[in-house]
């Protein structure tokens, strides 16, 4: 947001007309959005804070219950810790993989050869598809006997696992789908980052005899660290809230192996009717995401390079 500050004052000043009206006109223009944000975001946040302190089921009037929802979550609900752990595994796996694969795809997509834009479009296309269709398709691709994936593995004389019905492989399977569907986004952001690196740097290094490999590690990667940092923060936040593919493909199974935090909130609120309890879970999620993001910013200067 630093760019916000350095704006020539000429641009910020309003036209004489709007200044004369004491700013009423300005509020007319931003009013609908400001009112919308107050009604549909600020107000719900306060309702949610209150709901999390009640035993609200949605059917009977809420009774104030103090912090009992939070106490129950942290001390007596085994699914809370289990789903948190599963979410952490999913998040680490999918964030690391999608940034790594996204970087590889971006480097490939940055090559100036004919037809490259078709490949970039193919890598990005899954991003625009919906989670239900994606879940359906991969559900069948993962079938142990008739599925395409194990069929291909069998041709290589590998006995594929039972994927979605296997305790050990279900999470791996879900992560693969998430990376396949989402990697176009980091690829696109990294492509923009790559295009921001001046070609002269590479040319100078080439003249000095640096190999492509060392140019990548010594020039490209350090200059991409701000982009990588941005992706780490945003991908973490979105991955932590994974829901769609779990809802469609596994329903959290087998035996809670892929039961993630948001799916558990959804179940608590809309299957078990514990709205207050689910609201408390939402607030804990907010705190976790906030704390992790804070530490990511704290550690930023250890590895992110912003140039001289």
């Amino acid at each position, binding site marked *: 947001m630093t760019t916000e500050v350095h704006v020539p004052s000429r641009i910020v000043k309003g*036209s004489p007309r709007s200044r004369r009206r004491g700013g009423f006109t300005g509020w007319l223009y931003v009013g609908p959005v400001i009112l919308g*944000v107050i009604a549909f975001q600020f107000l719900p946040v306060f309702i949610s804070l209150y709901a999390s302190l009640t035993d609200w089921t949605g059917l009977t009037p809420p009774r104030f219950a103090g912090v009992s929802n939070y106490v129950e979550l942290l001390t007596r609900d085994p699914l809370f810790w289990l789903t948190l752990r599963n979410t952490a595994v999913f998040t680490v796996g999918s964030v690391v993989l999608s940034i790594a694969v996204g970087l590889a795809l971006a480097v490939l997509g940055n090559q100036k050869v004919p037809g490259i834009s078709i490949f970039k479009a193919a890598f990005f296309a*899954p991003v*625009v598809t919906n989670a239900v269709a994606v879940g359906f398709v991969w559900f069948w691709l993962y079938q142990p006997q*008739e599925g395409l994936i194990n069929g291909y593995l069998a041709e290589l004389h590998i006995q594929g696992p039972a994927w979605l019905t296997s305790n050990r492989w279900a999470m791996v399977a879900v992560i693969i789908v998430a990376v396949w569907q989402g990697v176009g986004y980091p690829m696109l952001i990294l492509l923009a980052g790559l295009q921001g690196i001046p070609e002269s740097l590479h040319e100078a290094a080439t003249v000095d005899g640096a190999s492509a490999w060392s140019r990548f590690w010594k020039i490209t990667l350090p200059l991409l660290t701000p982009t990588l940092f941005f992706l780490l923060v*945003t991908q973490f936040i979105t991955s932590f809230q994974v829901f769609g593919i779990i809802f469609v493909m596994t329903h959290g199974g087998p035996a809670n192996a892929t039961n993630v935090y948001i799916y558990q909130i959804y179940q608590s*609120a809309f299957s078990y009717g514990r709205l207050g309890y689910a609201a408390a879970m939402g607030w804990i999620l907010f705190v976790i995401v906030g704390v992790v993001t804070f530490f990511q910013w704290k550690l930023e200067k250890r590895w992110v390079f912003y140039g001289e």
Partner: protein
Amino acid sequence: MLETVSASRHAAGAGTGGRGSPATTRNRRVRRAARRLLLYAVLLALGWAFVLPMVWMLGASLKPENEVMVVPPDLLPSVPQWANYVAAADAVLPFFWNSAKLALLNVAFLLLFASLAGFGFARLEFRGKNVAFAALLATAMIPGIVYLIPQYIMYRQIGWIDTHYPLWVPKVLTPVFGTFLLRQAFRTIPRELEEAAAIDGASTFTVYWRIMLPQVKPALAAVGVLTFLESWNDLFGPLIFVNSQHLQTLPVALALFQGEYFTQTNLMMAAATISVVPPLVLFVLAQKYFVQGVTMTGLRG
């Protein structure tokens, strides 16, 4: 500096054989061709892996039922069964229209409110502007699930549950990203344009509608395509706020009513294909704006 370096390099490259013996030049050319061949091989393998699930979906959607699950698996049907699409379309048409209607409402009204607010924040002066803008951006930090349960409680109070209102009204009135992106776009337009109009006696609204909006068409398109995508692919909203079958959107209807309509996998895949076609077509047609929208959200930090 950059231009001169690459220009001189191009000049050297253009005069092939200008330096070095013919043999080393040929070596270099062979090496470059080999490198390019390897690059295409890698690209083709990866590209195939990325489109394979969609090719399978399309293949399965055109198969007769007994060919969908065979060992060893087969990608394509022996004879394409186009009738599958007639049957699937018959079942999904009402849901398709619900999705289309909501996507259009979302795009139209979000663009209106986001551009009004973006214009206000970029060009008008009013008390409390900076606080209002900071508050707007702050809401982007709160995970959506925190709103969802209280929104459900609110909508039940005002009778919005099981209507389409929760799927567009709150969204078009909270366009945080759209407002931000359009504000940036408005700020790049030279002041002189609107000053000239103001001298001619144009009202603020005329300046916004007639002069400023046409200047930010690419940004409007970028916000529009991303809004369409978000509306069409939304899962949580329809799942939580809509109960009646006839009001359901296409993706969620596929997930909820599969047992009822699509006991056959081939028909289910035809329906799934129908559900991904509008976003894919839009992506192909408006790729430029997708890229612009995504990278602008990405590089705002």
